[in-house]
């Protein structure tokens, strides 16, 4: 189990020596690794990652931040603001933030991700003549 083989981007073909893989499995792995080398796919992966990871971090930090503040600074959180207190306002703002992230994701995924996916689909259909689809009929079930 070499560490090199675990790094993303290193091809599975590096593990030819392992006996369990059949020729068909290796061919398939190679096919998909090649598909994933396309600029459009790399762009898609990067764009998704650049949105999803920060979005997850923001909502998790904000949500658990609120729980920690409520737990350990209850008096500060009970400060009256706008007829209610800070704690309730912050709880409401969680809904607003969740909706903002959700709608931003919808917009970005429509404008960016879906377009890249369409490009990839066109490329796969064109260059590989539907190989991926036919392979799946045998495999994925």
């Amino acid at each position, binding site marked *: *189990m070499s560490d090199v083989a*675990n790094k993303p981007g290193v091809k*599975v073909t590096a*593990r030819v020596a*392992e006996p369990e*893989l059949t020729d068909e*499995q*290796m061919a*398939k*792995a190679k*096919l*998909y*690794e090649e*598909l*994933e080398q396309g600029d459009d*796919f790399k762009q*898609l*992966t990067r764009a*998704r990652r650049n949105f*999803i990871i920060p*979005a*997850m971090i923001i909502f998790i930090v904000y*949500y*658990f931040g*609120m*729980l*920690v503040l*409520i*737990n350990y600074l*209850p008096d500060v*959180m*009970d400060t009256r603001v706008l*007829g*209610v*207190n800070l*704690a*309730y306002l912050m*709880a409401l703002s*969680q*809904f607003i933030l*969740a*909706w903002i*992230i*959700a*709608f931003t*994701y*919808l917009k970005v*995924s*429509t404008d960016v991700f879906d377009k890249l*996916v369409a490009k*990839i*689909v066109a490329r*796969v259909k064109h260059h590989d003549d539907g190989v*991926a*689809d036919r*392979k*799946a009929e045998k*495999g*994925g*079930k």
Partner: protein
Amino acid sequence: MHTSYNQLFTKLDTSDKTVAIVLFAVFVAITLGITYWASRRTKTAKEFYAAGRSIKAWQNGVAVAGDYMSAASFLGIAGIIAFSGFDGFMYSVGWLVAYLTVLLVVAEPLRNGGKYTMADILAYRLKAKPVRAAAAFSTLTVSTFYMIAQMVGAGTLVKLLLGWDFEWAVITVGILMIVYVVFGGMLATTWVQIVKALLLMVGTVVLSILVLAQFDFNIGTFFNEITQVRTGALAADAKQGDTSVVLTQNPGAAGTLIRIGNVTSSPESYNVTKVEPKDKTFVATLDKPLTKNYDKFTNAGPNKDFLKPGLLYKDDPKTTPFGKLDLISLGLALVFGTAGLPHILVRFYTVPTARAARVSVIWAMVIIGSFYILTTFLGFGAALLVTGPIITPNGGSNMSAPLLAQAVGGTFFFATISAVAFATILAVVAGLTITASSAIAHDFWLNIVKNGKESESEQVLVARITAFLVGAVSIGVAIFLKTSNVAYLVGLAFAVAASANLPVIIFSLFWKKFNTTGAVTGIIVGLVGSLFLIVIGPNGFAATNGVTNYNDAIFKLANPGIVSIPLGFLGAFVGTFFSKEPASEAKFPEMYFRTSTGIGAE
């Protein structure tokens, strides 16, 4: 408007019962009509399990909301806010933000990579038999706990409302859910969810408006009242000139300031000079004579600030030694449990594309979020307008929302809201039944016993039989467990989902080296770990008659998530290093490519 609270102690009279039964019968008639319509469109496995992938994004969004807004949400959250104030609202917040995990991480890859069940996504590149067996087992565990919680809730509600026996109520719910699922499959289940979600939203909006009307639509007054909730009520009529009153609750030491009067009738303040317990009530001597007459059940007692955080989750060496940690732990289970709930995940198989799955989560988030914001008026409204001491003898905290409906809208509205609550439960149990039966019929029977070889008509037959069996077993178990605590069972479901399901879903989607051993150990460690911690926790053996007991519990947290979720991840991570699985690694690029692009998705 002055509500007579005496009514709250009387059960529905015959004509109100008739209203409740008629409304409920209308709902049943509509849903049976839907089932008949759906049954003629449910012939293949794809139609039975996934409604033929014909559901539109908005429809699925409403159905996801219907699946999610269960008895625990509608009855449970209103009750917990009514008794514990702001802290109860943390459930509402956690249950909505949880959908970001569903939206950003699982919904689209799951739709692209799977067919009918949660296990499909694991079996894409891992060894099908062991992972399907493990995933089917955890699906059954989560769905069964969730289902029994709903059925126990339904039984209690109907018993209180209509005076039916608990057993008959559970059997009625059980038979209806079996009919929906066995005959109408996922298509009927989906439309039952949609109808129920709309009813629940309308009921909640109307109830919220009626609550605000009591405060002349002044939100400022409403929130100001929340900071000074009377925590008790008069246990007997009091007359002008009296210098003592009988209270339902102990007002505390001499010198305490109490206020008497309902929210809408300008409460007056008095100082207590002496308190004497009498039967189960407390006789409080006042510093000055009463200036007017008060009816029995008028709000009376010291003020309590229900908007202040920490009423429920506090560190108190006598009762809740790790209350603050419990809040964090609860948050973890809520935020990471939803994305591992099988009955929510399978909903994404009913839409045609990953894009539709995405849009349906957005629809669900808008509906669910609006509903949870409105729990503010349901929960705090019940605290102010009904009050804890009235709710307790009238069915307990779970009855807060229906009792509030009676207080602000009269018995007709009470009957309506109760019928809505019953419809809510019915729709949720149908969703759970189809999920549990697909785990048995698709994962276990078809893919493990039959090696994936079975004709289409046989698959549907087996699915219908298992749906019937799942329903029948749940009826029996719910009757057997009728005294169990509903919130405890739902908490269990979320803890197991977050600890056993989510780690393996995430690893299988995003970690190339992840393998079958890791998936099986992850599910087992997460499942057994969370169950064990709950059993040795304050709601497990230590609890008597469903009352949480922190003192005698070995594990001091009611919510095991903070320990069991990391355990689940650790189990899946460590397990992976116990074996090498080149086949699974070789298939990762294919799965990753397909779940990312949707190419080849069904």
